[in-house]
């Protein structure tokens, strides 16, 4: 087994053996359910596809938060307990370490997205929507969540405190989401460029509508890779000062 998978398996077992992972997942699922019931279904009749779109809208928020929360401990906790020294002295590169940690956060995120699918599936079985719509939304959640995990991992690389790591990652995510609002007050190509960088709005809405476009997939993969590269650089820089 490669060192990357060893680390992933260890982390996943660690998540599974502690309450924190379940607590985060369950709380966010509960919140998603409440939001969906209160705002998603509402008290006026809607088409199934609109209800499904609303479901994905609320799930996108909790999925992004889940990604950050699942990732906040990945490096910060290791630094806090000192176990990071086992990994830093092991014959693995910083890129492998960052990849392993990302996957370790991505696996519980996948589990979370899978568990949250009960809401879209309820709409699918009780309403009239295409399965492709559900699948597209699920893919969007996975991609958005993967960006959340990589942003959370970046924060976790920066700080020893998980709380601070989560807060900083959250701020980065919120700033990236708000770029679509910023783009409205900037004219011309710059405004267009800012809008294109926004984490949610124009990149996630098509998934909510059941549309998969290569550009949006590439965008989320790019965000994920960008923050993974930043995380690797932080880890590399930390070798200059442990």
């Amino acid at each position: 087994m490669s060192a990357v998978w060893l680390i992933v398996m260890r982390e996943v077992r660690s998540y599974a053996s502690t309450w924190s992972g379940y607590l985060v997942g369950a709380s966010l699922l509960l919140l998603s359910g409440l939001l969906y019931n209160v705002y998603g279904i509402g008290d006026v009749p809607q088409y199934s596809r609109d209800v499904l779109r609303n479901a994905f809208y609320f799930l996108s928020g909790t999925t992004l938060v889940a990604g950050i929360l699942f990732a906040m401990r990945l490096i910060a906790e290791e630094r806090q307990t000192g176990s990071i020294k086992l990994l830093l002295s092991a014959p693995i590169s910083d890129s492998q370490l960052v990849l392993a940690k990302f996957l370790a956060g991505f696996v519980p995120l996948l589990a979370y997205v899978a568990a949250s699918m009960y809401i879209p599936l309820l709409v699918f079985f009780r309403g009239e929507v295409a399965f492709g719509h559900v699948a597209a939304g699920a893919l969007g959640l996975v991609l958005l969540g993967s960006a959340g995990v990589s942003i959370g991992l970046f924060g976790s690389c920066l700080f020893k405190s998980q709380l601070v790591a989560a807060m900083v990652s959250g701020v980065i995510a919120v700033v990236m989401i708000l770029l679509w609002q910023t783009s409205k007050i900037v004219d011309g190509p710059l405004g267009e460029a800012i809008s294109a960088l926004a984490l949610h709005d124009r990149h996630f809405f098509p998934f909510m509508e059941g549309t998969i476009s290569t550009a949006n997939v590439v965008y989320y993969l790019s965000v994920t890779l960008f923050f993974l590269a930043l995380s690797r650089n932080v880890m590399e820089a930390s070798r200059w000062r442990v």
Partner: protein
Amino acid sequence: MIEARALTKYYGRHCALRGVDFRIEAREIVGFLGLNGSGKSTTLHILGGLMAPSSGTVRIDGADLSGPSGPEVRRRIGFLPDRPPVYDEMSVRSYLRFAAQLRGVRPGARSLSETMAQTGLSDHAERPIEELSHGYRQRVGIAQAIVHDPDLVILDEPTSGLDPVQIGHMRQLIRSLRSRHTVLLSSHNLPEIAQTCDRLMVIRDGQLVASATESELRARMGSETQAEVETSEDATGALVSAREAGLIRGFTERRDLVYLVELSTRVEDLVARLVSDGVGVRRVQPTGSELEGLFRALTEDKAA
């Protein structure tokens, strides 16, 4: 063979290491001494592959630790930091298996059970690490450092926080490493260093100020230990004469017939002198080890 050449490390504008050079031969146990802030931990972190030097190289049998093959070279190093790098929720066995596989040791290899036997962990193999005492956690820390059979084992304060019985066990364990590993041992427990190591390296203000055996250092520095001497009759005259002969640097009378003397030679020479002067010696008790004297002299006053 481990060779460090011109190791220099800056933290911002602060220079923590200034061109440190040393060589450690295979199967040597070397003690690494220095006051807090002297550059000891920085050196150990560089040797452990956790940190990169600002300049200089570390080579293990010619392979550069900071070069492109650095991660592979780290496979040949086992490192126990000041705090064992353990995962509390894991059992001893699963943790050591993880540490071994991380360094490329295949699952089920004999080294796992051998290591647990060597470190006295066989009876605790299935216990979660969080349930272990401090002493056993240290053992787990050493076990993870040797489970992949590295050439160099770096132990940073392995006896820190242990009780005397545990220190005794740890000393035996460290000595047992000699058969298969080169060991670099950092400790504030000076008797520990003296009893365990073949050679001492002393670092001060980021510079290596001594690298020799304890006896070589003693010969170079002169003995600077203190001893409490109890005699059967007044020894003032004999001690004055011993001071004039250069056997001691001074003495004070602590209480009746009990003297605290500052030795500048071996305690045996002083006893022989007192006896030849007709003074009966009832008891001689060193109050500070010779190593402590050496350590103070090297780290506080002058370079060897």
